């Protein structure tokens, strides 16, 4: 079971969280014209990197905050976690 550092609550077990997928995907701005390709990239297409990547989790049985987690998808090692309003620096 993963041990995830919630930036609000501290180290917590994975089963307090629910997964939210790739954290680097930005929702296009409401009301803005967007190409089919860009929309598909937002809705469907995923890099799903092997190695370090940023992903979302919600601390659903904790503080209910969405957080950003940098984790290695090959080893499951976690390097960093950020609050929802903190920007990922790639």
């Amino acid at each position, binding site marked *: 079971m993963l041990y995830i550092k919630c930036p609000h*609550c501290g180290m917590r*077990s994975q089963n307090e969280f629910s997964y939210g997928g790739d954290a680097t995907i930005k929702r296009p701005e409401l009301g803005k014209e967007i190409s089919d390709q860009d929309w598909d990239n937002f809705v469907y297409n995923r890099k799903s990197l092997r190695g370090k990547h940023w992903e979302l989790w919600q601390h659903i049985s904790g503080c209910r905050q969405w957080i950003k987690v940098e984790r290695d998808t090959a080893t499951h090692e976690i390097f960093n976690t950020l609050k929802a309003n903190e920007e990922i620096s790639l």
Partner: protein
Amino acid sequence: MSLISALAKVHHPGQFGDFEDKKGDDLLKISEKKNLLIVQIVQFKNSNISTDSIDIDGLNLKDTPLNVTFNKNTRILWNGPKNWLLVSSNKDLIKNISLTCKETDFAVTDLSHSRAVIEIEGNYAIEVLKKGSPFNFGVLKKNNSINSLYNNITFTVDLLNDKPFKVRLFALRSFGESLYHSITDSSLEFGYENK
């Protein structure tokens, strides 16, 4: 008009499980806490008000994980960033909160009826929690609280005392009977007395 609490149907007085030859704090005591005021207080993101200046029943809102500020009647549990759960036996306090926490800066939501509350006292109370919750109770000190889960039911733990342990558990009301089952079933090994 009659009030029916969340666990009224399942919580009955008596001694259960492996209670024989056990006494004092070695026998767990389990009770339902009823008729509490439970209020969620959330400060909006753009609010500039310092929560240290907020005074509710003489207590401040402290944005510190695990922290519980408390007095005789009232406990304010940290529930998340700028998010608190106030629990009080003083039902009238709700008016005070609404006046203190203005709606331009705070969302105040009465959740008094939305929780089932179980209190466990005794030396083995934390052992019972360890049977179903993945939280590291080694870091939970007296007057700390956390949200976690117990056998897949989200719950809040408030540690009121540690010698012997006295903990209050809050779960969503509709899950109350299931959590109650889980907790009492875990307590059978130690034996427990229902109050």
